[in-house]
């Protein structure tokens, strides 16, 4: 994807996470910044900061006094004081601050523990097999477009209780929210309104016909003995849909991208299924898709940098995961890495709510893929493209199936 912004010449003073250099390969940029800064600054987006070490990323993640989550996607439009009903925010609880954050999160947590997540496993496995069946007889196809991207969208659509045929609709929404952050603001607003409209129609439909799904769960949920206002329900539904799709699609795609280029890892994982647990965590560490963001809540000095209220801060968990101060040989993918305190799902109170769901999907997607296609490679490494913005994953991933005899 080409950025609509001017090219970056120095990421230390003018970084932009939509710049092609960052999109194609952010890891050397972060390593360079770790040695030179390690807090970069940019005047873009109205002023933004970027810490790149594990220590600094952790520090920000745990600091709810100086940073607010009111907006977690950096774009040209910063929320003003009247914009969002703080401390709830646009899409609770990701956009909420304590103490409201704790209430909104607590309400959702039971729906995302390993147990309810496991209920979706057979659906996910069948889905993966169906997608692989559709590639039958072809030597080459796009593993991102024909496999990875369909898995999380259909799982979350199933969990929210939306019609499966609407799955395609959501991918447009998600691109808008997460990738097209450099579109003109009016255009973004118009398209956001369409998302709200869709959610409202689902809320109405579920009010009329309650069923056993996440949308009905939200309609029944209470905070302090009160049912949730419709803005809260709509915001959370939008969040679950968006947060659950692009991210896991990226993790599945990046893992397959790695395996396509590393025959040793591929064969080892196919031969030793018990390795899947550590391998999965290692893929999540090395190719963590999600960079979060905060807004500076008040003026203060952050390790010698004059942070001003309203400044953006990009919170790059993927950079923390490549910090040599926190991980041995961080740029090496070791499927049996024993010590792996990676931050792919964030740190602190905003830990990814759907981490159990994401892990389940990633594990089943890889298991089913390797069972069907133990040997494959990139058809053309130069044809692989990566998403721009705060969620990183391969969006075009043409692969060639090797030794096809089944």
């Amino acid at each position, binding site marked *: 994807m080409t950025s609509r912004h001017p090219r970056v010449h120095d990421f230390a003073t003018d970084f932009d996470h939509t710049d092609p250099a960052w999109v194609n390969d952010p890891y050397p940029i972060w390593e360079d910044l770790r040695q030179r800064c390690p807090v970069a600054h940019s005047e873009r987006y109205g002023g933004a900061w970027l810490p790149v070490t594990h220590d600094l990323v952790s520090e920000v993640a745990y600091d709810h006094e100086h940073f607010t989550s009111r907006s977690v996607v950096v774009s040209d439009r910063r929320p003003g004081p009247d914009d969002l009903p703080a401390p709830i925010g646009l899409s609770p609880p990701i956009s909420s601050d304590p103490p409201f954050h704790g209430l909104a999160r*607590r309400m959702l*947590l*039971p729906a*995302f*523990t*390993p147990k309810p997540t496991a209920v979706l496993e057979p659906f996910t496995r069948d889905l993966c097999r169906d997608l692989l069946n559709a590639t039958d007889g072809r030597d080459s196809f796009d593993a991102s477009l024909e496999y990875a991207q369909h898995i999380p969208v259909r799982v979350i659509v199933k969990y929210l209780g939306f019609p499966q045929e609407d799955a395609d609709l959501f991918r447009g929404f998600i691109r808008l929210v997460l990738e097209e952050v450099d579109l003109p603001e009016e255009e973004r607003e118009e398209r956001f309104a369409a998302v709200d409209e869709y959610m409202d129609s689902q809320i109405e439909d579920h009010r009329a016909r309650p069923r056993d799904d996440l949308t009905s769960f939200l309609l029944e949920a209470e905070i302090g003995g009160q049912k949730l206002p419709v803005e809260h329900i709509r915001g959370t539904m939008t969040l679950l849909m968006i947060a659950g799709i692009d991210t896991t699609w990226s993790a599945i795609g990046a893992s397959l991208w790695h395996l396509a280029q590393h025959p040793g890892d591929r064969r080892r994982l196919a031969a030793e299924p018990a390795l899947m*647990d550590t391998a999965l*965590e290692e893929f999540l560490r090395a190719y963590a898709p999600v960079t979060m963001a905060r807004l500076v809540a008040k003026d203060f000095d952050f390790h010698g940098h004059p942070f001003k209220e309203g400044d953006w801060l990009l919170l790059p968990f993927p950079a923390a995961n490549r910090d040599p101060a926190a991980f041995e040989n961080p740029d090496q993918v070791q499927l049996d890495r*024993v*010590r*792996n*305190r*990676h*931050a792919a*799902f964030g*740190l*602190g*109170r905003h*830990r990814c709510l759907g*981490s*159990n769901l994401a892990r389940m999907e990633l594990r089943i997607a890889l298991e089913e893929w390797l069972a069907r296609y133990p040997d494959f490679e990139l058809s053309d490494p130069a044809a692989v493209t990566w998403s721009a913005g705060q969620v990183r994953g391969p969006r075009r991933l043409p692969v060639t199936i090797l030794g096809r005899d089944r």
Partner: protein
Amino acid sequence: MTFRIHVDPDKCQGHNRCYSVSPDLFELDELGMSSEVGAGLVPAGQLSLARLAVANCPELAISLTEMTAAEVTETAEATP
């Protein structure tokens, strides 16, 4: 040597890594937050799993400590 494992409830954020690597040593509440099973005594055969849980907690919420002889006795008496 007896070891005790403990999850700091103020630090645990429910990543569930400990439960995933050593399900016999940890249990999850209805919110998915982890705590040690019982008094947290680590059976001899499970020490490496306990260490694995410590090494994989992103929040550094898990501690593994060696117990003194007095503590072992005390715990044995307190636990039916």
